[in-house]
Each structure stands twice: as C-alpha cells, then as structure tokens.
C-alpha cells in the first residue's frame, strides 16, 4: 500500500511499526510499564492493547529487571518480545538483564541460542523533569558487544527500523526520543531491511564540513546545515542510525573529503558517542587530510537541571551546532 501523498510523524510511525508487526507476525508481543495508559509512552502505542489484546500488549508491575528478563526468556522460545521502558533512566534497573544476559547469551552458549528480544528505551527529557528523568544513555549500550543499538532520526526510519529490530534474531536496543514525535516527513512504503544491513546514511551532501549525529541530534544538524548554507558553508550530515556495531565507512569517506568533523550528540561527552565518532575518524582519515581539529557538541559535564532557565543552556541547539561549525572554518 503506497501512501506517498501523506505525511508521517515520528510518534505515529512507531505506532505503525507496531501495527505492522502485530498484523504480520503472531509471535510478536510487547511488555512494559504504561502500555495500557493513554499517555505513558506518548501516542506511540495508543490503544494497541484494545486492538491486539491485552495478552499481546502487557502492562506490568514496576519491575524493570524482571520484566526485561521475562522478555528475554520469551524471546528464546520463538517469541519476538519487545520490552518497553518509558524512560532510559528506568531502564538502568534492567542493566544486568540487558548487558550481562541478553548481550552475552548467544556468545556464552556457543551460538546455540539467541534472544531475539527488542528492548525499547525512550529518551524523555526537558520539561523541567530533572536529573533522573532525562538521560540519553545510548553510548553506554553501544559499548557492549552483542547488543545491537538502533537510534532512528526520521519517521520512516522510526517505523522501518523498529520492524527490522523486532525481526532481528539478535538482542536489539531500539531508542526513540520524545522530542522527535512531532517531526513529520513524506510517508512511503515500509522498507524491510535485515538489521545487519542497515548502515549510516548521508542525509545531506556538503563538502566543507561533516556533521555526524544520531536521532534528535540529526534534526539539529539538518537545521543547522540549512542555516549555514546561507553563510556559504556546505555541511554534509551523516545519520548514524545503528550505533552498535557501528559502520565507519561513510564517516571515513565523508571526513576524508571535507577535512572537518563536527560530532553532535545529546549525551555526555566522556566515553560518549561523539568521542567515538571522532576517534573512528581520527584512526582512519590521514593526518594530512584534516583541515581543522574535530570538535564535539554534547551536553555539559553535569546531570540535567530542572529550572527552565538552566535547561535552556543544557541541551545542544541548532545555534550551538552553528557556532561550533563556524568556529571550525
């Protein structure tokens, strides 16, 4: 079914992805906190319990560890289980199950069993919610071999990569950001891609400087690139899409061409994604190809504040991306 004439918003796209999965694969089920609530996970799962039944859309006690473990366990027996955490901050309570168990299960048992689980972690920040309700910990999980980490930046990717994640036989962490839910783009048919084949995408072509980001930060970069173009600065924008395992080819080729790399990330700097992008490029692009030292735009080295007056300073913005890019020219 083609829907070329309609626009698709990111939040609705996630819900479409779930509908696709529920419609096409009887082994899919979702388990997590707030799945029967009209507001817990935004509009991304609205009424799915009513459409597909409460046995396939399971709302749970406040028990992150056990619920995630249960999803992993079910995924070992033919179920495509999706464990949903309305905030990445809460998902930390399931870290053992994700990192010690799911990520290592296949390896430590000699590849004889693989948890085909998808864990969905939502970045939910801003709104004066503060330090424990704001974290974007994608860099943590990207550090862990065995856990595929997916972080879509666009509506169609949000839908299609959710489907790819759930249909992947490996454990996958799928991360979406509530700040993206209203971002819309032209809809198109579902593009079914095996997750292993999904690589970074050049969202915008430009030879003066290469901006690299994932998820919401890609949108910042695209906006900044639009502004910078007017100043005569041509930005290439790379959307990483899959953080682990990370494919370095596009970064290498683009940065070799532009000689300038600005890595933008809504997480922290130290041992974070932006640093990884820079290290990846530094290892592969020859010293003489660089025109400027690479730069990161990330969160400051602090937890998230609550007061709106400080929140405004805390998160990367289109403006902070522009300033950093200009300084590199």
């Amino acid at each position, binding site marked *: 079914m083609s829907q070329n004439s309609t626009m698709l918003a990111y939040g609705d796209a996630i819900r479409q992805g779930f509908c696709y999965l529920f419609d096409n694969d009887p082994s899919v089920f979702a388990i997590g906190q707030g799945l029967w609530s009209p507001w817990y996970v935004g509009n991304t799962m609205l009424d799915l319990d009513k459409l597909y039944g409460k046995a396939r859309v399971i709302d749970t006690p*406040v028990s992150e*560890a056990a619920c995630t473990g249960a999803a992993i366990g079910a995924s070992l027996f033919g179920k495509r289980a999706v464990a949903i955490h309305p905030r990445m901050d*809460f998902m930390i309570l399931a870290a053992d199950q994700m990192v010690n168990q799911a990520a290592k299960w296949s390896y430590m048992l000699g590849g004889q069993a693989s948890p085909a689980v998808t864990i969905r972690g939502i970045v939910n920040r801003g709104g004066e919610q503060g330090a424990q309700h704001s974290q974007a910990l994608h860099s943590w999980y990207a550090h862990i071999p065995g856990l595929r980490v997916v972080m879509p930046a666009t509506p169609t990717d949000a839908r299609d990569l959710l489907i790819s994640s759930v249909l992947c036989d490996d454990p996958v962490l799928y991360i979406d950001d509530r700040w993206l839910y209203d971002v819309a783009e032209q809809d198109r048919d579902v593009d079914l891609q095996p997750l292993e084949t999904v690589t970074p995408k050049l969202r915008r072509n430009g030879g003066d400087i290469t901006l690299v980001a994932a998820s919401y930060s890609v949108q910042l970069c695209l906006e900044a690139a639009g502004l910078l173009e007017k100043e005569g600065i041509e930005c290439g924008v790379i959307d990483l899409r899959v953080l682990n395992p990370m494919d370095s080819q596009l970064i290498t080729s683009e940065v070799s061409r532009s000689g300038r790399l600005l890595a933008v990330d809504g997480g922290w700097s130290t041992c974070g994604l932006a640093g990884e992008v820079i290290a990846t490029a530094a290892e592969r692009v020859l010293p003489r190809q660089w025109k400027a030292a690479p730069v990161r735009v990330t969160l400051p080295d*602090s937890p998230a504040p*609550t007061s709106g007056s400080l929140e405004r300073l805390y998160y990367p913005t289109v403006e902070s991306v522009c300033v950093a890019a200009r300084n590199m020219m």
Partner: protein
Amino acid sequence: MDRRTTPLGDLANPEKFTSPIDIGEIATDTLLDWLRQMLVIRKAEEQLARWASDGVARTPCHLGIGQEACAVGVAAALRASDRVFGGHRGHSQYLAMGGGLTELFAEVLGRSTGASRGMGGSMHLYAGSTGFHGSVPIVAATISIAVGAGLAAKMDGRGDIGVCFFGDGAAEEGVLHESLNLAASQEIPVLFVCENNLYSSHLDIKARQPNDRVARYADAHEVQALTVDGNDVVTTAEAASALIGNARTNSKPGFLELITYRHRGHVGPNEDIDVGVRRTMSDLEAWKRRDPISRLVVALEATGKASESTVIGLIEEIEEAVGAAAEVALTAPYPEDDQLTAFVYGGSAS
C-alpha cells in the same frame, strides 16, 4: 472472576471508615497542630495544582491531595535528627517534617531560592535541617538509602532512625525486598512507610499484585508491620509511634502500611486523568467522603475540641500564609547561568 486475595477488606473500601476519626485521649493542641499541618499541605498542593493548570509551574507535580494524614501522622513521632526520604509524591513529607512553604513554591517554580536551589523541582526536595534529607523520583530509590541512613544512626548510637516513604508500586521493585532483608538481618533502625493508595499511575494494585496488602512482604522478612487506615491521622500517628519507638530503642526495622487514596491524577492537577483503566469518578467521590482532613474536623467539632469558627479561622490563616509564600516565590530570581555546573561535585566544591 477476580482471583486476587484482598486481605485489606474494608480498609480498601471507600464506603467504610468514613465516620469521624476517634481522637481518644490526644491533647487538643496536638490535634490542632496535625490539622494545621494537613491543611498547609492541602492548601499548598492546591496552589501547585493551580500553577500547574495555568502553566506557571512546568516541573511535573505529583500531588498527594487526600493522603495528608500519612506524612503528618508519621512525622508526629519523628525529630530533626532522624533521616527522612521520599519519592516523586513528596510535598507532604517535606512539609510535615517542617520544610518551608516559600522554598517549596520557589523550587517548583525553578527559582534559586528553592528548597533545592532550583536544581530539582517538585520531585527533588531537600530540607536537611528538619530531618527531610531528600526526595527523588526514581521509584523505590530512597528505600535502601534510608536503610543506610539508619545504619549510620545505629553506629552513632543516639537513637535516630532512617525513614523512607514510598508507594504500593515501589513495592514491586526488587530493591525493597533486598532492603527489608538487609535491615532485618543487620537490625537497622529504619521505618518503611508504604502509602498504599491502591494505584501505581493508571494501574490498580489488583492488576499488578496478587494481594492488596503490601505489608505481607515485611512479614516475609520478619520486619514488624502494621497496616492501618492512612486517612486517619490519629491511628497513623499511633501506629507510627509504636514502630518508631521500637526502632529507636531496640534498633529494629518497622513497616507501616497506610491505606489511602489520591484525589488527583497520577501527575498534574486533574482529577479525571487516570480514569479509564479501573479508577472511576464514583470511586473517587466515595474516597473523598473518607477525606483525612474533614474526618478530623468533624471529630474535633463533635467533641467540642474546636468550634467551626476556629477551623474556619485556621483555614483562612493558612490560605493567607500560602498566598504570601506564593507571592514571594513568584518574584524570586532564577538561577544564574553558572549554576548549571556548580553542584556536580558538591562535596569538593563547597
């Protein structure tokens, strides 16, 4: 067919326990003080509700309107050297321990004069000098911290105790069970206070647990437990006092389960926000007839301990104080920009 066990029985039935509370031999001053405290909490939260509705307050506010007797009853037997912790629904505990109204309001409004200097908002409150050592919104997070606070108190041997307030939802986090075992096996003076309001956001306890009496977990860990009407400030205070006394004197943990109900939605000012899964408006109306404040007022008036005009005077006085504090908070300054990173390493910086 409901296969759940419901040992709470009448305690969870809003049609019961609606009569005026039994004030027994409690001194009138004490009762009036408790009434005052409950009214302060009620009026303060109503102010927050207005600000939330108007968009003046943006930080998420989890209101405890309807649950005031819990914090007030427990705080009655606590002292400033005790170590009290709360969670996301923590205004009442902060205020009952003596936290300032103006600081609460300023914090919710994100001002630098707030209880947490504007760094925390509604869900992160601090009033250390009163014994209230912090609320944070990760559910169940402060339970083990309170156990450690109790352990430190035990080491110091002055009879102080740790206290944590949490909800029936928090009881589903494994760390409660680890904490109960640690406190029991190490004999740590700590009071676990579960405000069982029968809901964890949109979900009824029956949808989440096979039994509606949370204190059964304490039984399993051999922690002495009491389950009482949390909308009765006298009963709550008496039960709390017994467990607190045992903690102070014998270095034993205690578990107090207070059955109560919130009048507003899980978060924000509206009454009808969680309706739809199980919570109904008629349930809510019934629970409002079991209101902890009016039940005390009626008891005071019926026994002649306070006249209607005394109560009205008290309410007016409190409304005025709330209004004044709100005024002050509204004009307080926002944090300076350099506060953004000032408190990351609080120990070594200050």
